[in-house]
């Protein structure tokens, strides 16, 4: 296990790369969902405003 | 009935007026998402241009790092300057400032402060990154931040005079540079010297003090000069 974590002496380079890239992957999920939620909220607000006008 | 006869009791003081002018300019800048990062991005791009144009060797880059940094800061500050007064002149805001009954000097000072907060300060915070990428040692960071922060104050002030002077003219961009750059030369020279000394690990207090002196001189004179220039441009 330790040997695996050590990555043949390249641990300081390999693990950060994996961390950064996988973080980008996870963040993309989070951002996409929050962006969709924001748009839905905005659309809801717009509908309410249009309803008030009519 | 008589409320038009006496000075209104709710008249705004100069300080309040200046605060509003400052707030207005900051609001305007923040309104556009990403506006804030633009001087930074420009600064970063210019500092990346140099290695491309010169040579990618760090040893050679370190030699010119301070100079590149300062020329980039000067240009970033200058580019943003154009907009300090120009839009306000177009849409009649300056005219209303001049007719507000408030001392125009105070309002000009507020505008210049906004310019510094929006360009100088972020540049100062960003400079270390650019310096490090050009091969400066980490020890140089405090000196670089201090010199850029103080130097950009002077640059904003000098620039405000230039911007006000060129108000009446269309296509003022290059003329503005022409007027502002010679006045900015001392700032550039002392700033670059302070940064260079910091990069080489030597004491950099002397040029920094000169920069501070320039900034103080600017604070006392520049708003007066630019207020006068603005009034003339309205005639």
């Amino acid at each position, binding site marked *: 296990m330790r040997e695996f974590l050590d990555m043949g002496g390249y641990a300081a380079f390999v693990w950060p790369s994996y961390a950064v890239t996988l973080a980008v992957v996870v963040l993309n999920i989070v951002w996409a969902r929050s962006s969709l939620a924001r748009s839905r909220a905005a659309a809801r607000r717009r509908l309410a405003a249009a309803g008030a006008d009519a | 009935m008589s409320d038009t006869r006496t000075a209104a009791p709710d*008249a705004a003081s100069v300080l309040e007026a200046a605060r*509003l002018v400052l707030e207005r300019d900051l609001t305007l800048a923040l309104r556009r998402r990403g506006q804030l990062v633009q001087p930074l991005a420009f600064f970063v791009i210019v500092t990346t241009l140099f290695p491309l144009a010169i040579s990618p060797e760090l040893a050679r880059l370190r030699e010119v790092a301070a100079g590149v940094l300062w020329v980039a800061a000067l240009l970033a500050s200058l580019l943003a300057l154009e907009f300090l007064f120009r839009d306000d002149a177009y*849409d*009649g*805001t300056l005219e209303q400032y001049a007719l*507000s*009954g408030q001392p125009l000097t105070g309002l000009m000072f507020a505008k210049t402060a906004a310019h510094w907060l929006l360009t100088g300060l972020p540049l100062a915070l960003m400079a270390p990154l650019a310096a490090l990428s050009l091969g400066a040692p980490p020890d140089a960071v405090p000196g670089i931040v201090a010199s850029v922060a103080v130097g950009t104050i002077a640059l904003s002030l000098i620039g405000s005079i230039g911007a006000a002077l060129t108000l009446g003219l269309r296509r003022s961009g290059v003329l503005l540079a022409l007027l502002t750059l010679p006045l900015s030369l001392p700032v550039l020279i002392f700033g670059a010297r302070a940064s260079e000394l910091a990069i080489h690990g030597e004491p950099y207090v002397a040029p920094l003090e000169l920069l501070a002196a320039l900034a103080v001189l600017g604070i006392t004179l520049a708003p007066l000069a630019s207020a006068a220039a603005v009034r003339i441009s*309205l005639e």
Partner: protein
Amino acid sequence: MPREGLEVENLHLWRGEHHVLRGVGFALPRGGCLHVTGPNGAGKTSLLRAACGLLYPESGRLLWDGRDVHEDLPTFHSVLMYIGHEAPLKADLSARENLRYWIGTRRRIGRDTLGAALQRVGATAWSERPARTLSAGQRRRVALAALSLLLVPLWLLDEPTTNLDAEGQQLVGTLIEEHLARGGLVLAATHHELPLPRSRVQRLELTHE
């Protein structure tokens, strides 16, 4: 005792090579309204800008309550409001923000006062939209709101009814009448009739040469 109000004496103004105002003079007392007319290029705008001290006349005097205004321009400016051909709006700010920052440099102003002024000019529906998206008449209405918020004595209005619909033109008339009633002075330049009873209005006709 010096007379109250605005007095202009024998004003001569050059613009470039052009002798625009040749000895214009008038006296505008408290509660008076002067309607400046004349063909295009006669010098109406020039007269208004000279009257608020933005243009410096070649000769002649400009007196406010009997004092020469050029002796203390900032004080004179604090009693007047000038609205030119274009409303000075910032494209990126909403009508409400524009008013707040514009009027705020001159007087303290509360949210409610601002809201009431916006409502008065029919701006409630679009007061939060960036000024960039406003129609020509809507921009003018914001300027009217500014006018109604600043209770300074002297209003200088350059074509205040431009771009306004019938109701907006009537609003200009009402605002002016209210202002005159509280002792204010109005100096307005238009090519149309001012929406006011004729008896309330003095006229000054500028001509070429």
